[in-house]
């Protein structure tokens, strides 16, 4: 069935869509590899003639312009990795356990609890931002990894639960019945039969949750704005508002783009599955 594109109209449209999707990132990359003078030419030069890594060196604390620019980008990279990974692991643990219980087990108040959790998906950021700040201040978790991981998790869990619930519902029940007839307990069945079969769904949920975590801004802006915990996104906004050369700002942006871009190009199939499973039901 697969065939090359025939109609020139569609081809032009496809090229336009690819250009639209890639150009801004290309432009940031190109700027980050240019010298300041080259980046500020008018008319703008579409390609870098002499690529240079000075902006990246400055960003990571080497070279003449480092003092102003860097301001702890290495630390903010560690922070974003710790916070995003922590939230992903915790979200998955919670959503996988609960998703299976909702999909397969019987207990009181099941549908009430399930729909109460899913309903929180419709809550906008407004609903929880200020009280979460006050709660976290009261318990002393502002500017801590744990605080930000907990807040991320509470936001990510409803969607993860929804996807995992649909994954478990779609698994054939016969495998679990067979395991049960062989004398396995519910927990053994879950561990040895269900989890391995659900692995693609779990992977999709993990990848999407990770990308959500990586993109967070307003919650860490409020909850972790000191250099010990601020993620790369918050630092990037701060660098952008300082008087730093555009080449260095774009280099910082490219650092923040790198990981999601790698995820998209290598794990794209799972992202599409996850988004579709989460949205169209």
């Amino acid at each position, binding site marked *: 069935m697969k065939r090359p594109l025939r109609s020139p109209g569609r081809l032009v449209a496809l090229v336009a869509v690819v250009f639209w*999707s890639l150009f801004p990132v290309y432009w940031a990359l190109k700027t980050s590899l240019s010298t300041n003078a080259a980046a500020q030419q008018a008319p703008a030069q579409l390609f870098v003639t002499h690529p240079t890594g000075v902006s990246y060196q400055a960003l990571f604390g080497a070279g003449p312009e480092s003092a102003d620019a860097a301001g702890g980008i290495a630390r903010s990279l560690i922070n974003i990795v710790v916070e995003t990974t922590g939230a992903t692991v915790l979200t998955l643990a919670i959503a996988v356990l609960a998703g299976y219980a909702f999909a397969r087990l019987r207990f009181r108040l099941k549908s009430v*609890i399930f729909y109460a959790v899913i309903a929180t998906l419709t809550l906008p950021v407004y609903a929880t931002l*200020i009280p979460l700040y006050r709660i976290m201040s009261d318990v002393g978790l502002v500017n801590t990894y744990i605080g930000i991981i907990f807040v991320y998790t509470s936001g990510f869990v409803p969607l993860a639960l929804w996807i995992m619930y649909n994954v478990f519902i779609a698994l054939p029940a016969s495998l679990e019945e067979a395991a*049960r007839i062989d004398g396995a307990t519910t927990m053994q069945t879950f561990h040895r039969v269900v989890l391995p079969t659900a692995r693609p769904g779990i992977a999709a949920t993990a990848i999407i949750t990770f990308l959500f975590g990586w993109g967070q*801004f*307003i919650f860490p802006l409020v909850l972790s704005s000191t250099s010990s915990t601020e993620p790369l996104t918050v630092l990037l906004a701060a660098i952008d508002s300082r008087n730093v050369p555009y080449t260095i700002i774009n280099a910082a942006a490219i650092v923040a783009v790198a990981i999601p871009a790698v995820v998209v190009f290598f794990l794209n199939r799972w992202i599409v599955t996850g988004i579709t499973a989460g*949205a169209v039901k």
Partner: protein
Amino acid sequence: MTVTDAAAGEGYGPDPAAPARARRPRRDGALPYVMIAPLVVFIGALAIYPTVLTVIEAFMHIDPLTGPNHFAGFGNFSAIFRDPEVRQAIVNTGWYALFGVALTVGFGTGIALLLQRPFRGRGVVLAIIVLPWALPGVVEGVIWSWIYNPTFGVLNSALKSLHLIGQYQLFIGAHQVETILLIALVQAWQITPLAALIVLAALEAIPGELYEAASVDGASWHRTIRRVTLPLIRPALAIATVEALIMSLNIFDQVYVLNANSTTASSLMSTTYFITFQDLNFGEGYALSLMATVVTVAIAIGVVKLLYRKVDYQ
């Protein structure tokens, strides 16, 4: 695999009646409650409880320095509606929602129709299209602010080379609606892939016979889209519209980077942020939050009711 470890750590126990239980309706005892306990704790403490707090505190006078809060009735609400910055933010957010939904659903549906039929290289194109969705909103704001730059920006350079403008211009901050459109475009760049994937999934679910029947009847491409495709992807369009609407009513990251705290293109979310965390006016912040939450949820439900009908392929 932490997931597996967590699962293995709890819930094992004697289950002597297992084979006999298989037939009759059963409850699973305490195990389900153990499995949902972490979920209930997290959602209860960090989603539902804070929402309830927002509802209550919106009617309180709150002074974080001098202490105890007291009931203020609708005082916070009348204060926010008297505030010209808030009024401007409400109008601006209306523009953000309009542009956001039109751009996102329009582009998204177009991209989905373009990718509907299989062709060589479709997977790569899909990966490229998904990329902007995966990037942080702040990063996109930063990247686009350089594109829009008044003195060195590539948009200025391109428009000048095409003789569409005589000299370099200030795009962001000069005119209200133009600024909002350009910031909305940055958000649309980010969320269009989501709309495209939602619509694409619906397109792929349409049985091929329907298209064959339409072409046997001699229907044009245009007519087929209108009479066959659009009615069948209506639910998907409803979902894409609601998602775009909620995200544009909540627009913050792009506004924070591109507009900072100027009122020209302020959004409800950015105004709420600055009133609460810069002016430390928590009472008004809560009132704004509650209002925005109610409006968001109400509009979302309304749009779904209006557009969403179950599809029957008969």
